[in-house]
């Protein structure tokens, strides 16, 4: 399967018609069945040692995010401090994977996290709508990388995707990937706008073929954002893509994951659908803000046996 698929992939990107044939030739997703499978994975009972393990992993996978028009250097510095030391009362608490900010605040973030292992991710390409000329979107990316971003979270042009101009989307991603240089590229689909699981599976393959390091559900600006079944369809895609090409791609659900219980459901799903290889911050991330404090609250409960009030956890 793997060698024929490799050549299939290069053939598939030779024209828009070929790309359409390839993407529409992927097996369909039955909505009812996919949602039932996700729900059943969500009913696993994760307790005691397994829960402790999962909570620490989830904290390590958080891309702590602020993407507001009112973001300031002060706000971003506070966020970075939180990412480096999520629980000041407990030095054994791991740091988050990254902070995620707008491109103009990358240098502030970079200065603040200097010396730590926390990465700086920047949203780019006319986030969140992606409605700008390719030159503008590429320049947006290049500026964020020049300012020191370790990771770029780009959005695809959903209009082009839904109009069937798959090759335009593919070329966009290739161009942005090139502008990324050494930075890792996450490709956001805005699954709430693509709407069908078939579209999500096609977008996943399209982005992976164009060189994405990560595929990401949402901007957080559109509802619904990440859901368990939509993320599962993407996790199935990265699993199948690795089986076909040998290249591993990460997955990042973002938006709407607010509780530890939800986060653990995602980890169970990743574990059982793609396998333990993806249970690592290099291959799975949560795009979130309020999730972190719930993870910390549950973590403290597991270590002390008591629930503390929200005032015992920092608001940044």
């Amino acid at each position, binding site marked *: 399967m793997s060698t024929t698929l490799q050549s299939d992939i290069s053939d598939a990107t030779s024209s828009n018609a070929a790309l359409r044939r390839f993407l529409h030739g992927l097996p369909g997703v*039955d909505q009812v*069945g996919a949602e039932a*499978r996700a729900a059943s994975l969500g009913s696993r009972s994760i*307790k005691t040692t397994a829960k402790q393990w999962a909570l620490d992993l989830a904290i390590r996978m958080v891309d702590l995010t602020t993407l507001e028009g009112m973001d300031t250097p002060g706000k971003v510095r506070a966020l970075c401090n939180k990412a480096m030391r999520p629980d000041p009362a407990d030095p054994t608490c791991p740091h988050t994977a990254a902070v995620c900010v707008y491109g103009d605040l990358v240098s502030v973030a970079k200065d603040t996290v200097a010396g730590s292992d926390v990465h700086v991710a920047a949203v780019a390409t006319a986030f969140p709508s992606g409605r700008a000329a390719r030159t503008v979107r590429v320049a947006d990316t290049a500026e964020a990388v020049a300012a020191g971003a370790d990771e770029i979270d780009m959005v695809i042009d959903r209009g082009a995707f839904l109009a069937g101009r798959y090759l335009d989307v593919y070329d966009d991603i290739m161009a942005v990937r090139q502008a990324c240089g050494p930075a890792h590229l996450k490709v956001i689909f805005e699954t709430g706008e693509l709407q069908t699981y078939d579209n999500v599976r096609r977008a996943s393959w399209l982005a992976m073929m164009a060189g994405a390091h990560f595929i990401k559900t949402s901007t957080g600006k559109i509802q619904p954002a990440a859901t368990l079944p939509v993320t599962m369809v993407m996790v199935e895609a990265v699993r199948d893509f690795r089986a076909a090409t040998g290249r591993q791609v990460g997955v990042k659900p973002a938006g709407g994951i607010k509780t530890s219980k939800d986060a653990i459901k995602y980890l169970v799903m990743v574990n059982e659908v793609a396998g333990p290889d993806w249970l690592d911050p290099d291959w799975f991330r949560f795009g979130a803000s309020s999730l972190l404090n719930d993870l910390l609250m549950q973590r403290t409960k597991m270590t002390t046996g008591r629930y503390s009030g929200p005032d015992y956890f920092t608001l940044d």
Partner: protein
Amino acid sequence: MSTTFDYAPAPESRSIVHIRPSYGLFIGGEFVDGRGQGFKTINPANEDVLAEISEATEADVDAAVTAARKAFRSWSRISGAERGKYLFRIARIIAERSRELAVLESIDNGKPIKESRDVDVPTVAAHFFYYAGWADKLEHAGFGPDPRPLGVAGQVIPWNFPLLMLAWKIAPALATGNTVVLKPAETTPLTALLFAEICQQADLPPGVVNIVTGAGDTGRALVTHADVDKVAFTGSTEVGKAIARAVAGTHKKVTLELGGKAANIVFDDAPIDQAVEGIVNGIFFNQGHVCCAGSRLLVQESIADEVLGRLKARMATLRVGDPLDKNTDVGAINSAEQLAKITELSGVGEAEGAERWSPACELPAKGFWFAPTIFTGVSQAHRIAREEIFGPVLSVLTFRTPKEAVEKANNTPFGLSAGIWTEKGSRILWTASRLRAGVVWSNTFNRFDPTSPFGGYKESGYGREGGRHGLEGYLQ
């Protein structure tokens, strides 16, 4: 920090269940001692004895039928609305005591708690709610202006879904104004006996529901009793045939729900990930102890390797073990006898040249266990493609064209269920209209709903249970 996500044990507490050391028969609204030898029911997951169960003799069965006959005089005359009230009350108590019923079912049967909790018990309550609604609307059910009940129903049920089969039998019988004597399977009597307590709690008039426990002799005494007007049986085709012979020439009306060897047909345009889930759910749900299990996978040859690769990867994630652990997917085989049968037929499969595969899984030392198993390279001539194994064993066959798929699917003495997997709507309709099976699922499998009729073609039995159709078997 360990590198793998090891789920810690998550056992459901069994403290909610109070199993008595011994149980009598439930006759005329009271528990009475049986006159037979008595027998033990055990937990198939660890072989612990759970309780002593009375064995009903012919005389006990006669007492139960007499109690049911006496109760029939008034139960058949009260208004449908009044009967509906009792059924709604029973349904509500089942929902309220659902955790207790689920835990007890898993202990006595060996099925995973997630299935008894999420499938069996909710469907039981739904079945009573559904037929409660029919009780005062029978004249609108399409069976004439004034449909009359039959009288006393003798009902014999299997061990694979003890409480659900009880609900399928008792709910329509009571809604239509019949009274019942029900015999649960000898390996799984406990939830039926707890149901007897629920009848008491619901103030159901004495004798409307009678539960007699025992094995084959008790069942024979019940179905051959001269004052039984209706026989309803779910179980093996062999016993079903014996029952059909025994009641031939009598006034008794019969419904039989027997074995199956269902084809689960996967076309090359199927939603593959969901089809794999459907294959797993079709054969490993309830350890494959399902009469409508999708035990024959018919996969289009062009995608067979891909489907099998994905199926094996998926099977490797199945969690086999303690039925009371909330993360268990496959529980214990119900009895030593059934385990021996599955083991024997699997041995035949290997001897006949089919290729056997199971994922690596550690089985508990005590109790009755069988790893999820698939056989590839199976053809129609193999015994494992023809005989019902009634365990977690899948036979994989291939086909080339839709016509061949239908021919192979129908080429069996059974005809209880079938599954079709394709994204193409017209192919679903084309295939379904040619399959000789009572239930055809498309892009899903093993879904049950009280509003949907269920029953078989050919040696899978006759009569329908569930839905409006399920009323017919209990009306004159």
